[in-house]
């Protein structure tokens, strides 16, 4: 069966200019997202993982044109997303929505939650009558597990988890095709994280959504994703089906990430080798030549500094690595 590609990115770049200099050549550039190729299929959940500062959030925003990509192509349902005019883009935003990281900060403190949830409806279907809007808000609150009689309360009267449910309700009320979740649970308590993740998963099944799940927590991604992309310094390292990436990781970076996940079972944890990566993430202002990961890679060779990584592997699982023995 051929899967329908919902959103695809080709050679997507987001560069930020840092500081000002009279000479354009002396201006420094941060390559937050650097040449990402990505296909998002209808109905799947794509997990994107990576360390803090590796460009996950920027990628998420660039996919939805919340941040204007510097270069590259975006195809939304086969149409050129980057070619949309401002008006068209605003109108088409109902098809792709976003759930934000900080649940309380992403809700306007001056609006009641029902006003927050109704905002997409008021924006895209202004002809709706008040009762109809209210009916749909109540139905949506019910779906995300909020008591409808709480609808006139304000965000500060809710807990973080409840606020995130409001954020999810707001994103889903227009029945979008794609929902990008930017670390939706990283600001929540662990006990609430599971609830929210399961809620997203259930709603995905129920409404036939496509999810892009950004996280730095591997267990979250493993739990929900069909496919996973591992990012490092604005570049993809390993992309593939979640079971392939998690169980047969081939890229040294993925292996290191996986070995660093804490295991709850102490008997298993004791005999485990943790592959520590030396040093910190290099400055994206001045990324290493060749493969960006080589400065911390346990298997780096001289070749890695000279040659950019090439894509290898099959469609279900491919990695970007210069070292021919790994690739």
């Amino acid at each position, binding site marked *: 069966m051929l899967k329908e590609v919902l959103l695809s990115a080709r050679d997507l770049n987001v560069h930020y200019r840092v500081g000002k200099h009279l000479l354009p050549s002396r201006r420094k550039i941060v390559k937050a997202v650097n040449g990402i190729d990505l296909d998002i299929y209808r109905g799947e959940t794509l997990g994107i993982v990576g360390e803090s500062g590796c460009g996950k959030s920027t990628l998420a925003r660039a996919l939805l044109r919340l941040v204007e990509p510097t270069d590259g192509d975006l195809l939304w349902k086969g149409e050129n997303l980057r070619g949309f005019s401002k008006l068209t883009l605003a109108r088409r935003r109902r098809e792709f*929505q976003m759930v934000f990281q900080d649940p309380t900060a992403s809700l306007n403190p001056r609006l009641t939650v029902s006003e927050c949830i109704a905002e997409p409806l008021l*924006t895209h279907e202004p002809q709706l009558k008040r009762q109809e809007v209210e009916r749909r808000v109540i139905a949506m609150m019910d779906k995300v597990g909020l008591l409808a009689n709480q609808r006139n309360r304000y965000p500060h009267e809710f807990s973080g988890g409840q606020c995130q449910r409001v954020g999810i309700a707001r994103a889903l009320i227009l029945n979008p095709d794609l929902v990008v979740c930017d670390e939706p649970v990283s600001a929540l308590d662990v006990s609430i994280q599971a609830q929210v993740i399961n809620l997203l998963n259930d709603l995905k099944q129920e409404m036939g959504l496509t999810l892009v799940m950004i996280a730095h927590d591997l267990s979250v991604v493993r739990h929900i994703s069909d496919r996973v992309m591992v990012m490092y310094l604005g570049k993809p390292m390993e992309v593939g089906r979640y079971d392939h990436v998690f169980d047969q990781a081939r890229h040294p970076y993925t292996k290191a990430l996986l070995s660093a996940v804490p295991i709850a079972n102490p008997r298993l944890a004791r005999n485990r080798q943790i592959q520590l990566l030396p040093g910190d993430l290099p400055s994206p202002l001045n990324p290493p030549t060749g493969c960006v990961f080589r400065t911390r890679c346990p298997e780096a060779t001289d070749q890695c500094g000279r040659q950019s990584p090439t894509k290898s592997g099959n469609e279900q699982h491919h990695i970007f690595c210069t070292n021919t023995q790994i690739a």
Partner: protein
Amino acid sequence: MLVTNKINTQQLADQLADNVEAVAGRSLWQDAWARFRKNRAAMISVCVLLFIIVCIVIGPSIASFSHDEIDWNVVADPYELGKPSLSSGHYFGTDDLGQDLFARTMKGGRLSIMVGFMGALVAVVIGTLWGSISGYVGGVVDSTMMRIIEVLDSVPFMFMVILFVTLFGNNIYLIFIVIGMVSWLGIARVVRGVTFSIKKREFIEAAHSIGVSKITIVRRHVLPNVLGIVMVYSSLMVPGFIMFESFLSFLGLGVQPPDTSWGILIAEGAKTIDVAIWLLMFPSVFLVATLFCFNFIGDGLRDALDPKDR
């Protein structure tokens, strides 16, 4: 017992869940109002200010004389015959022309307080719009709008007033226009700064990701969040305008007799301080009380609106 209780609880829970009658929330404004009400100085100030406003609204109609009427009975010796007394009908006494000070204080208060409120109103409306648009749009628009403010701000104020008075003659509306022209500059800067910080908050990005238009974002998400600061700032500005009008009138550039304001009354009273203290006392008490009230109310508003900053 326990089992029946469990069933009851379940029924209760179901009832609660089915109860779609919405619970009323408590908005940040309501929170702030509750905090403001607990602030004694601010609440007393509100009462005093309301009393003063009631006085100046109904005062001129309960006075025995009108503000520009000369009482010929006291003109012969105004400092002796024109002392404050209940029997003569001059509750606050008269000035050296035999005009009733009570009527004049009330009449002058109307003008002073009107100047204060008008200045604040113009400042709030223009300043908030200007500042929020400038801050939200940013870039070239922002620089241009801010340069306009700087140009207006650098025009010497007194020079403008004198120029206007010579060009258009002495007129009360001129004061409104001049105060209006300069009063919004400060508030526009403040609002721009606050807008800048609000613009980076996540709920603005969320609104953007929904596809809300820029105008609506400013109206629905930016303005309600800058309004608190605007309220504090403008209530603290009102005394400034009242003082400014007094200052202009004192220089003879403001209101002309027989119309009057607290500033003029105080200026006149200061001349006769050694023979007729009441001419200075009554208008000053009203002016000072009003200024105090506005300052306390502004302080109270600030404490009520951002409790974190105390």
